[in-house]
């Protein structure tokens, strides 16, 4: 479910970076004073390892477990979100899994939506039946995360298909795959509940207000995304360049006066500019190699 670079408009990508930083920042603030670094570091490593498993599914292929809802259930939503964010950051900066401009959105989907929604659902349903609560948490968490990814991609004009395609495709596909996620989440939770019930006892109820705010943020974020899309453009830097007036006077004309010949095809102008630029970069690269 990792979104690569190029699928999202920068305004949408930027919005979700901001939202994610706010929630993660709050989570860090929330957990200050509790020496928990190793908890979400080691558990992040464990989640990473668990994500490496290839679960066989009917049809002959495999599905992978994401674990956001599980992280929320086992660690609480704040530590869970941080653990998942650690996993996603490593995947981006070590495996190039998921784009670097899309990291904010990927974190929003898999480290915040999946975790918090999973947590909310589990808490709401656990008094009825722990296993079913965990199943629904795992299933719905992943489905919603996928829907958000669908919204982010669909709303971005960078990606040619619109919401009416991306949301159903992502939603339905992951609603099906989500069954595996749900079953595994339920398996883990019921195992731990039976073997070490004390693990579930210690969770102090984190601030209701903050949870409410975050739930609201999640619910409203698609609207923010829509607004970001209206405000931003797919090509903000070019607009910036236009405003500064740079594009009006291509500088290469000055450097390569032969271009002022009016009969010359502008396309060739670009081509030659490209070649000249490349040669300059080549030269700079050689200098770089010398200094290394």
């Amino acid at each position, binding site marked *: 479910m990792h979104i690569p670079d190029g699928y999202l408009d920068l305004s949408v990508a930027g919005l979700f970076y901001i939202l994610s930083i706010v929630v993660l920042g709050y989570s860090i603030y929330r957990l200050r004073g509790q020496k928990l670094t190793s908890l979400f570091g080691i558990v992040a490593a464990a989640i990473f390892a668990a994500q490496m498993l290839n679960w066989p599914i009917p049809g002959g292929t495999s599905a992978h477990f994401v674990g956001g809802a599980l992280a929320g259930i086992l660690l609480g939503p704040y530590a869970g979100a941080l653990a998942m964010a650690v996993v996603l950051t490593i995947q981006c900066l070590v495996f190039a899994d998921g784009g670097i401009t899309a990291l904010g959105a990927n974190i929003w989907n898999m480290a915040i939506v999946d975790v918090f929604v999973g947590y909310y659902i589990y808490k709401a349903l656990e008094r009825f039946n722990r296993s079913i609560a965990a199943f629904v948490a795992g299933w719905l968490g992943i489905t919603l995360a996928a829907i958000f990814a669908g919204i982010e991609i669909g709303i971005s004009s960078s990606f040619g298909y619109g919401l009416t395609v991306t949301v159903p495709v992502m939603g339905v596909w992951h609603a099906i795959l989500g069954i595996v996620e749900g079953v595994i989440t339920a398996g883990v939770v019921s*195992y731990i509940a*039976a*073997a*070490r019930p004390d693990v579930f006892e210690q969770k102090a109820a984190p601030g209701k207000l903050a949870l409410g705010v975050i739930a609201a943020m999640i619910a409203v974020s698609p609207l923010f995304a829509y607004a970001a899309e209206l405000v931003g453009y797919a090509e903000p830097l070019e607009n910036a360049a236009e405003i500064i007036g740079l594009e009006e006077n291509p500088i290469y004309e000055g450097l390569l006066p032969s271009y002022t010949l009016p009969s010359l095809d502008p396309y060739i102008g670009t081509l030659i500019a490209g070649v000249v630029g490349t040669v300059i970069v080549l030269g700079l690269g050689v200098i770089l190699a010398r200094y290394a």
Partner: protein
Amino acid sequence: MGDNLKVIEAENVSYNYPDGSTGVRDVTLEIFEGERIGLVGANGSGKSTLILLLAGLLKPTKGNLRIFGKEVDKKNVEDIRRRIGVVFQNPDDFLFNPTVRDELLYVPRQLEWGEEELEEALRYHAEIFRIEHILDKPPFRLSGGEKKKVEIASVLVYRPEVLLLDEPTAYVDGKTRRHILKILDDFEGTLIIATHELDVAEKLADKFILLNLDHRIEAVGGKEILKNEELLERAGVI
């Protein structure tokens, strides 16, 4: 030896781990029914890997492996699991049931033994292993020695034909050690025990396979191997 069935057969078997490290290299051996084999070598020589391969749990990355005459595949894998028992080095990897009783009955229940058969097997093995008093305890609360006994009991309870053990005396105190060795001595099937403790190997086995630090078989033979200091040094055991 010619009359006995060939239980496990390996031909130029190699195993490389996903992280690139070598498990074993070019191993060729035959194990016959009823043999008692000591797999000796220094730490890191590949003993654990070989145990997992011979048990049919890992598939060789090179070479051929036949267990009970056939290669391991979807059709015969459960049968192999039923007839081969593996005692892992770390009991914490192995024990997962809520109580010791459940641990012992885990495999027999899958085999759908009757209630009486289950009770009898439980009583019998609890007695031999002297674990009657901890039957209702959760495994993670046990001492190292108790865990190891429960682990071995959980495997012996379903009477496998072949028993493989990876460092069975690790994590274990002196008294438990003697007890375990006595029980293993009484085991009547094919026994393969991987250990770096030469005295344990000597006590339980009569054929020895020596692995060296290059992850290959250095030598195969009888008790004389254990006395051959030059050989053992070459293999990195001493």
